[in-house]
């Protein structure tokens, strides 16, 4: 025991030498083939504290968190819990020490219900499951943390935002004392984030500790007691004390330069109609998902779709991309009908589509970056990889994708870098020159530097005359980029406004379903 406290004192960045930290890591090293993901990282979190990990895409944040919860084992270094050295050989061992992680990539069983997923992995399950009792229990836990969710719903039917909520409820249900949240807010809307933060406060009040990972600097400033900055697997900076920093400084600490995320709008008059949607309705299993949607997107214009997750955005995007046939109504790209013609037809007319779920739909996890670039292109009978290879290398450079090269497997990329591969493919043109770009949450999970790059690319695409449909739960993004904004609520367009004169309050109210009759 004496030894243990001695070791704590050795910890290089410890807020106070007095109380043993809830969880500390000493000189953790984790190497993946070709990358040193964590290079002698020291980290600790005190009881009742929110300690944030900040860093560029691929800096090593998720890797560090995975070692702290027992998912990965460090190559060297060690971890202590309340001053005692522990060996975390598996996530279950982590749970036994009260450590739980909510992962960036969901780890849910799609075919199971919410309740089944939440209790999955619990040791104390009785032989026979009492479904309704179980669902009540899960619902109660969820409710008590202000994260309402239908415990009987099948996960496959949930939006990404709802899935994230299930993950959080699961960790809380398992009784975590230390909660590692890997980009939990990436898929939440502001109101949900507020609720989450209320929970975080409640938990820290109760002496629990939070390790928080986010690229949203505003949130980081708001929630963190301490911030540790990682860069290329090393700790490169610390900020201590709530309210002692601002987003600009954090950005500088992270990427080493100033970042300007400016508002961009169409610089010139918009052209002819590229996307035409007429009276589009979609009913799935008797439930109306989209009803009577009509709008156009012009060449050189960006139309933003705002809305809370699960209000039909995913289905709208999938329908435009030809993945779902609408129940009624029509869609045309450049004047040609695409309804019921499938995704390849839509792409041949100039569609590019960045779906919401990158590793689930947009990318093939076990394939290389190179092969993933080929996914939406014309591959010929014998796949010609040699001519695409230089392009892959170029895109990796242009998008600053942290990878070992074009053969790096998609599953082994960091979250932000996977998103970059998807964007690189869809923004670089495919079968034909892109005319219509449908992008869902394009900058989710990207670091500020990458957000700047992607926004600039979207702006370039618009200036080049592409029609862009931006579907995002990030209201800030929709508001600052779009030329026109539609709000989707329960499958209907309930509000429409030009981007310049959009008001946060009005749009926010429309998203919540409170529509003052002001369709102008």
């Amino acid at each position, binding site marked *: *025991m*004496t*030894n*243990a406290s001695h070791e704590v004192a050795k910890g290089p960045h410890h807020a106070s030498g007095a109380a043993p930290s809830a969880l500390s890591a000493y000189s953790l090293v984790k190497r*993946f*083939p070709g990358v040193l993901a964590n290079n002698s990282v020291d980290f600790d979190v005190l009881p009742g504290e929110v300690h944030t990990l900040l860093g560029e895409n691929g800096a090593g944040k998720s890797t560090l968190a995975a070692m702290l919860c027992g998912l*990965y*084992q460090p190559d060297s270094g060690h971890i202590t*819990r309340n001053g*005692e*050295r*522990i*060996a975390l*050989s*598996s996530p279950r061992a982590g749970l036994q020490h009260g450590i739980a992680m909510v992962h960036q990539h969901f780890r849910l069983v799609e075919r199971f219900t919410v309740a089944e997923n939440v209790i999955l992995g619990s040791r104390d399950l009785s032989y026979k499951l009492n479904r309704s009792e179980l669902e009540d229990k899960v619902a109660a836990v969820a409710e008590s943390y202000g994260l309402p969710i239908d415990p009987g719903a099948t996960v496959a039917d949930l939006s990404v935002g709802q899935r994230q909520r299930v993950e959080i409820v699961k960790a809380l249900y398992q009784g975590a004392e230390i909660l590692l949240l890997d980009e939990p807010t990436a898929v939440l809307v502001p109101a949900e984030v507020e609720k989450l933060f209320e929970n975080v406060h409640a938990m820290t009040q109760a002496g629990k500790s939070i390790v928080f990972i986010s690229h949203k600097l505003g949130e980081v400033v708001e929630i963190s007691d301490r911030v540790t900055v990682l860069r290329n697997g090393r700790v490169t900076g610390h900020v201590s004390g709530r309210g002692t920093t601002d987003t600009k400084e954090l950005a500088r600490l992270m990427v080493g330069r100033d970042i300007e995320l400016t508002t961009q709008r169409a610089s010139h008059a918009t052209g002819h109609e590229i996307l035409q949607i007429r009276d589009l309705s979609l009913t799935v299993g008797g439930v109306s998902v989209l009803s009577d949607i009509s709008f156009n997107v012009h060449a050189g214009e960006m139309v933003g779709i705002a809305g809370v997750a699960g209000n039909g955005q995913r289905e709208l995007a999938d329908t435009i*991309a*030809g*993945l779902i046939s609408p129940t009624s109504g029509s869609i045309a790209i450049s004047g040609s009908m695409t309804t019921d013609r*499938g*995704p*390849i037809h839509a*792409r041949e007319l100039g569609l590019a*589509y960045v*779906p919401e*779920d990158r590793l*689930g*739909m*947009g*990318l*093939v*996890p*076990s*394939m290389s970056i190179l*092969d993933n670039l*080929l*996914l*939406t292109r014309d*591959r*010929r*009978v*014998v*796949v010609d990889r040699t001519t695409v290879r230089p392009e892959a290398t170029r895109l990796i450079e242009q998008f600053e994708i942290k990878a070992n090269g074009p053969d790096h497997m998609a599953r*082994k990329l960091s979250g932000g870098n996977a998103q970059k591969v998807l964007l690189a493919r869809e923004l670089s043109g495919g079968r034909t020159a892109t005319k219509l770009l449908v992008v869902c949450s394009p900058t989710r999970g990207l670091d500020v530097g990458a957000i700047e790059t992607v926004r600039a690319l979207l702006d370039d695409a618009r200036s080049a005359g592409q029609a862009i449909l931006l579907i995002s739960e990030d209201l800030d993004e929709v508001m600052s980029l779009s030329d026109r904004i539609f709000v989707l609520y329960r499958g209907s367009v309930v509000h429409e406004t030009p981007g310049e004169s959009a008001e946060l309050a009005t749009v926010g109210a429309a998203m919540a379903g409170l529509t003052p009759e002001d369709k102008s």
Partner: protein
Amino acid sequence: MRSPIRIVFEQRNETAKHLSVLVPLLSVVAALVAGALFLLATGYSPIETYSNMLSDGFTSSRGMTDTLGLSTVLICTGISAAFAFQMNLYNIGGEGQLYLGMIGGAWAGLALGDQLPTFVMIPVVLLVGSLAGASWILLPAFVRSRLGTSEIVTTLLLTYIAASLVKHFVYTPGSFFVTKNSAFPQGRLVPDSASLSGIGDTSLYPTFFLVILIALALFWVVKKTEYGYRIQVISDSPRAAHYAGINANRTTMSVMLISGALSGLGGAVLIVGPFGRLDPGIILLGYGYAGIVIAALARNNFSAIIVSGILFAGLRSGGDKLQISTDTPIHIGVMLQGAILLFALGGEAFRRYHIHAVRTERATQ
């Protein structure tokens, strides 16, 4: 303070390349050790048995050509199984498709043999056999791709029906496939134009080289072509396939049909080669089931199947000869085949997981 040791399975982030070779090799070794224990327990000498098998299966020249000859059909059923398995389609009815290949091949040989020259007849017999094999998986493929019905059950059931068909064709008096007025029921030999002779009077037939070529071609198709790309996307992420406009139903259908055709080809190979007739003896040999093991051992890699197919053929032909030559248990070859499957499947755990022992409590300082 001592504490119980627990075995922990930790998923490997990176499946090491050398393990892909090491694990199958070790499973063969482990199976041989298990077989040796069995031999010892039943009072035989493992050393004598294995050395006999080795010389009968591999090291003698007769043994080697017999092995390569037998491997021809085993490689067929191996690539047949692997072609479906790689897309998570579990065609375990290769056995029945092989019977159909024999029926189809024998039919073509008997019906057309007198009218066409050899260089036409051989391809015709092989083709008809393949088509017959494919026909036997048509129904499972259809219900699997349209309704999602498990192909495991359907393909297996059809194997039993195929076995009855073979018996029916041979044991029904006056059947097209049997010799008229023969004292005991036996399949009719196909005419000379539909049969090949062994190379240098051995049991190795030229079809061996054809099958090797097909295995290598499949290897190339899977790695390099659009078709192989599609198979990979669908097997890894059906949603990504949907997103990219890849028609999973059609690909499922075609992959299963090709798998059936390859087993059928194995049956036809027996017609132009060693059997020359529809022979109900095939039902006891289990060449189709062996294909499943061969594919599993080679982890569905088509070029590795050539190796594991030859290895199995050696075990089988070496083992089969034991019953004639020495006083040893006659089914040692088949038993080893089963043991290898078990160890190969168990070995997967070592390949996918890092297995180590840990103490359960906190380390003491």
